């Protein structure tokens, strides 16, 4: 397996945690016995440890493990923290910075000595480490050469971006109203100036819309603390793994997913993941694992939340279906596994107060499913008894920018992702070749003169859809009136009304703000 990708993610994430750790240490230095600060510090170290373990960066995970021990003592107040202890953690953080940047490797003898002396520092009890300690390590970097990190990010309020977007659009509209801009009698010089101005404005607007995208990694991080707190409430140890950090999605959509996701986490922690003792007896690691994963496939964004807990007992759901919904064995045999598990999402199941292992599994899950449904997405559950439970949120599109071939049929502007297009060609009605069938959407779309043949075609790659009238083979040629070109599109979800139309997979906004309808090639009628 190629780990480079994961190593890169590890390094990015750890750098972030270490920066936050340094900030927290600065605070705790002034308030040595603040146990909630220690809890936060513990959290950062714990996250780095978990990721380092997964990649077998033992030097990093071993050191983190020792620092964690200290944090726990300070959190619980079983040891008193001194400024020397904080200094040692600062030194630990410094060497972690260096280890993270070198994928967990120690390259020089000097560094090796330093690492060992820090490790031996943490192996003592905090009270044994004092400022006068002979073994106190020399800091990795002296104060005269502090670690300088370049400032390449600024924080900005989301509402500010909205404001900027609004203003840009206002300027575009203003330009449209300016009489000179819309007249044909412009001098050639002025006309080219106006064109240039318009192009720049449109590009500016498009660029601004990109600011609304947030990386999934940053989004998933928002849950780290909540998960930790919920886990504590239930006396469970949980390691959170984030996959697909680099995928970007629109912040407004992510914001609406926060509550449903917290609900799912609560479910995983309270009912999925077993207590450390139970896990031990089942030969599982005492630390439960929650994986949050983002994947972008075709026009869909998939968010998966997986726990390695006890799974869902299907027979209990079947019992519920028989007793409460009066389904027969035959009805149940006709249901596939997904349908059975998704019973949990029905309001009826949520209200069922059964005093079984399942109780609580469904509480509120119907509300979660409804919220996601409202966003035009869907929620499904799969589970393996004793092994894991997985919640999959499917949202209509990844909400990012894709390239698409834009074309027109009648008065409609349509688009097909460039990935789905093999080639584009001219269509001649008198074509000799009768073996190739052309696909005319005019009639289906209800466009006047359905028999008119368009003059271009798009040769599409498509997976054979079930129940489609399209003949076998993946050589589908879709007729189009005009081909506008290969353009970047910002894809937005089609909304509740338009998502009823299976053929549409999303709405594409072109750089000039024009709208095109993105077609789902696999759902052609």
């Amino acid at each position: 397996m190629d780990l480079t990708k994961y190593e890169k993610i590890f390094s990015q994430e750890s750098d972030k945690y270490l920066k936050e750790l340094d900030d927290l240490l600065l605070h705790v230095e002034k308030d040595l016995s603040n146990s909630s600060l220690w809890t936060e510090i513990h959290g950062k170290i714990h996250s780095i440890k978990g990721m380092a373990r997964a990649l077998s960066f033992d030097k990093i995970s071993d050191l983190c493990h020792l620092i964690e021990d200290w944090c726990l003592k300070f959190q619980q107040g079983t040891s008193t923290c001194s400024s020397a202890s904080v200094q040692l953690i600062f030194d630990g953080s410094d060497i972690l910075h260096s280890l993270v940047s070198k994928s967990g490797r120690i390259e020089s003898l000097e560094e090796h000595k330093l690492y060992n002396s820090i490790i031996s520092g943490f192996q003592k009890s905090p009270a044994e480490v004092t400022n006068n300690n002979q073994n106190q390590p020399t800091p990795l970097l002296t104060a005269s050469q502090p670690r300088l990190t370049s400032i390449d990010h600024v924080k900005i309020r989301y509402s500010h971006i909205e404001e900027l977007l609004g203003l840009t659009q206002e300027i575009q509209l203003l330009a449209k109203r300016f009489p000179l801009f819309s007249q044909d009698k412009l001098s050639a010089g002025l006309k080219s100036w106006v064109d240039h101005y318009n192009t720049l404005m449109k590009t500016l607007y498009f660029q601004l819309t990109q600011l609304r995208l947030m990386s999934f990694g940053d989004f998933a991080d928002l849950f780290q603390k909540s998960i930790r707190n919920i886990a504590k409430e239930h006396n469970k140890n949980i390691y959170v793994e984030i996959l697909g950090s680099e995928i970007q999605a629109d912040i407004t959509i992510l914001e609406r997913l926060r509550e449903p996701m917290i609900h799912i986490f609560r479910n995983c922690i309270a009912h999925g993941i077993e207590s450390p003792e139970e896990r031990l007896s089942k030969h599982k690691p005492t630390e439960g694992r929650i994986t949050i994963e983002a994947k972008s496939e075709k026009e869909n964004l998939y968010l998966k939340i997986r726990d390695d807990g006890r799974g869902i007992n299907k027979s209990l759901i079947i019992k519920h279906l028989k007793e409460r919904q009066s389904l027969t064995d035959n009805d149940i045999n006709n249901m596939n596994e997904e349908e059975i598990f998704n019973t949990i999402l029905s309001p009826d199941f949520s209200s069922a107060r059964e005093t079984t292992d399942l109780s609580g599994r469904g509480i509120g899950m119907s509300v979660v499913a409804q919220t996601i449904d409202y966003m035009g997405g869907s929620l499904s559950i799969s589970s393996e008894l004793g092994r894991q439970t997985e919640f999959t949120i499917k949202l209509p599109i990844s909400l990012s920018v894709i390239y698409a071939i834009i074309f027109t049929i009648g008065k409609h502007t349509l688009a097909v992702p460039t990935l789905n297009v093999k080639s584009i060609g001219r269509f001649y009605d008198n074509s000799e070749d009768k073996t190739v069938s052309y696909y005319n959407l005019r009639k289906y779309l209800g466009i006047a003169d359905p028999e008119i043949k368009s003059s271009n075609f798009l040769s599409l790659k498509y997976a054979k859809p079930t129940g489609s009238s399209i003949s076998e083979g993946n050589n589908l040629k879709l007729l189009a009136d005009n081909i506008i070109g290969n353009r970047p599109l910002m894809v937005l979800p089609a909304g509740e009304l338009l998502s009823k139309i299976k053929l549409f997979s999303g709405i594409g906004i072109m750089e000039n703000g024009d709208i095109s309808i993105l077609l789902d090639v696999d759902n052609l009628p």
Partner: protein
Amino acid sequence: MKFFVFKVRDEFLGIESQYIHRIIDDSKATPVCLTPDCYEGLLYYRGELFDVINLAPFFGYPKKEDVENPRIIILKWANKKMAIIPDDIIGMIWMEDDSEDRTVFHYESHVLRLLNPDDIWKKLMGLFYGPNKI
């Protein structure tokens, strides 16, 4: 109670002012295929997409073709949004409301019917979206 009042043919209709997000007259909706007659199209305004509904066909009147720069009322309520096009816009009026669930008021010498965006939405959701069945 503050209402935003508009006309569809000879009917006076109103919507509670709290649902009115904006009124615009310089943008046009992009027509969308496979939608019901009252679905005027999509509007991309300030980074958001709105379904634009033409109220005349929505209430069963024939559609007026080629209205230049129709005024579009953008509505936002609960966590929903849409835009509507009436035939005419009257403006904001204030009504003394004596009962909470009133839906019909007297406005000058006319009858003013109060619309609830949720009801419009429900009816829209019940319409057929897809190819005409022949």
